[in-house]
């Protein structure tokens, strides 16, 4: 009863205005005319009697709190949209169904709706962007990026070792984050090893692979025995040195 009351008092707000366009067809020129509602049910008609002139973007006459709230509008909407059973599935089916423009024979064009084309185009764009962004670095640049990664890992591990030595961190953090860095250093070594080496960089890449393994090993050492302060001090010094060395290599490319 409450729903019927709110429906009948609603002054055509929300989507009901669209039902005026009549069932089954829509003008392609109107901005929101692509909607093709099913014929409104008799129960819905009072709410759909929107006589307000509509501007291109649509003009909804209800102002402020008199506007129909989404939840209040629900029964009217459902009836107007023919969504009594299908919910969103109906909306989606309706949107992806072939458009029949005015003045054409039934089924003559069978073209995709704007929404479906936009969604497909968007998905294709996103997939392409993801693929293109994720690969395609030129080999020389790839080596340089790998070396920069190693510089970063080594320097960060040196910071962690420094905090560990001064008792300013937790063993749990050192173990978890140290393992991440160590695994990443190994991964960089594998990448450098597997990728084709650009001419003139063979020596530098070999040095980098050796350094990557050393960095990974040093991180593994202090992750395994964080209480060995003397060992951690040595690891810190080595990691700092390697970071500077790999950075020089990267800058030379």
């Amino acid at each position, binding site marked *: 009863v409450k729903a019927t009351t709110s429906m009948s008092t609603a002054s055509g707000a929300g*989507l009901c205005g669209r039902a005026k366009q009549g069932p089954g067809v829509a003008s392609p020129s109107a*901005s*929101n005319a*692509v*909607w093709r509602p099913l014929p409104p049910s008799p129960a819905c008609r009072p709410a759909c009697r929107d006589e307000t002139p509509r501007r291109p*973007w*649509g*003009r*909804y*006459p*209800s*102002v*402020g*709190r008199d*506007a129909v709230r*989404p*939840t209040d*509008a*629900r029964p009217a909407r459902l009836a107007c949209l023919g*969504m009594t059973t299908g*919910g*969103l599935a109906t*909306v*989606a089916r*309706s*949107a992806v169904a072939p458009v029949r423009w005015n003045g054409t024979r039934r089924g003559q064009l069978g073209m995709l*709706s*704007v*929404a479906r084309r*936009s*969604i497909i185009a*968007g998905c294709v764009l996103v997939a392409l*962007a993801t693929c*293109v*962004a*994720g*690969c395609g*670095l030129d080999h020389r*640049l790839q080596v340089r*990026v790998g070396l*920069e990664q190693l510089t*970063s890992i080594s*320097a*960060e591990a040196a*910071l*962690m070792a420094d*905090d560990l030595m*001064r*008792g*300013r*961190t*937790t063993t*749990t*953090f050192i*173990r*978890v*984050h140290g393992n*991440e860095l160590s695994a*990443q250093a190994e991964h960089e070594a594998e990448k450098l090893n597997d990728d084709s080496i650009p001419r003139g960089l063979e020596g530098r890449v070999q040095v980098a692979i050796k350094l990557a393994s050393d960095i990974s090993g040093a991180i593994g050492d202090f992750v395994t025995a964080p209480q060995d302060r003397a060992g951690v001090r040595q690891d810190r010094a080595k990691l700092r040195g390697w*970071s500077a060395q790999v950075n020089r290599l990267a800058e030379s490319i």
Partner: protein
Amino acid sequence: MKKVLQLALGILAAIGGFVDIGELVFNVQAGASFRFSLLWAVVVGVIGIVVYAEMSGRVAAVSGRPVFDVVRMRMGLNVGLVTLVSSLLINLITLAAEVGGAAIVLQLLLNFKIATMIVLATSALVLIVYFVPFDGIERIFGYMGCGLLIYLVAAIHFKPDWHHVAQGFVPSWHSSALYDYFVVGVIGSAIAPYEVYFYSSGGIEDRWTAKDVNFNRINTVLGFVLGGVLSIALIMVSAEVFAPLHISPGYLGTTALGAERAYGQIGLLLALLGMLFAVGGAAVECAFSGAYSVSQFAGWEWGKYRRKRDAPRFTLTWMIFFALAFGVVESGVDPVQLTEYAVIFSAVALPLTYFPILLIARDRTYMGEHVNSVMSNIVGWLYFVILLLISAAAIPLMIITHGGAS
């Protein structure tokens, strides 16, 4: 007292929404790569989110209509459907990144296997959302997320060169695609659409009326500016700690290391707890945003304030979102990588979200006396142009820089 409590909505939106995994990743990387020179991009992003969140909150307060209802009503079915599908995809990617981020932070705190932590993080979030009322969720994540304030203290602790910091607030252009990529990333992560979906729907959950228009204004300005200050602090800490050593932060652990360098174990624990609740809060916002969007678009009953049996499809939708995100993260995708994609793709969808809000908020017929002022209209249109530029540039920059790799 009630008003003070309601400010928690702003704090949740600021910490849990503004400072999410996108901020933690992009801002820290931006600081490490370009020191202070991207601080201005945070300011641009913060003003943008304040302007549009204020408009969406005002529309929600005056009319009782949240953003997606407005999108559906103003833009029609087809454009609305495109906006819905794109926002749902972005929401899902973002939610997966947030859940993965929460799992990583839990692992840094507890040292269990990441797969176990993903199960723990997802279960905890679902249980909290299911059993705790809306204002309780606000308080849990809003207040606990304040642990991130450690970055603000740390930024000052490192005694930065304030002259250089001030220079960072002046927009500067570099002839580097990577710089432009980070500009898009920093602004995009600040002005993420899901924040506005959540904020406006949250206003309706909190039963705002036209009397709350001023409260909404204070809420957006205070909340998002607080979030912006934290973003600036993240950039400053990164610029001080990581940039001189050529560290390129690619892990959430690296972000925590910044606080550890300043305050040792206390700094580390506060940073990790703050990150856990900020990322967790953002995950809740994302899941709700997805459920709000679908429900509002389809005309279903929605709202956390309703009993579950009164809004069953809304409840089911956010649960499905969590389940899908769980599946994505358990598949082994790197949450940090996922975050970068989420931010860039959400930048592409920005105009679709914000244009209808601007149209409604400037419509006197609809908003009555609470219509946009001249200044709001000018700033709104100016930002709409900025959003168009960001949207157009996002994908090409991602391709040119290979996702920020070079």
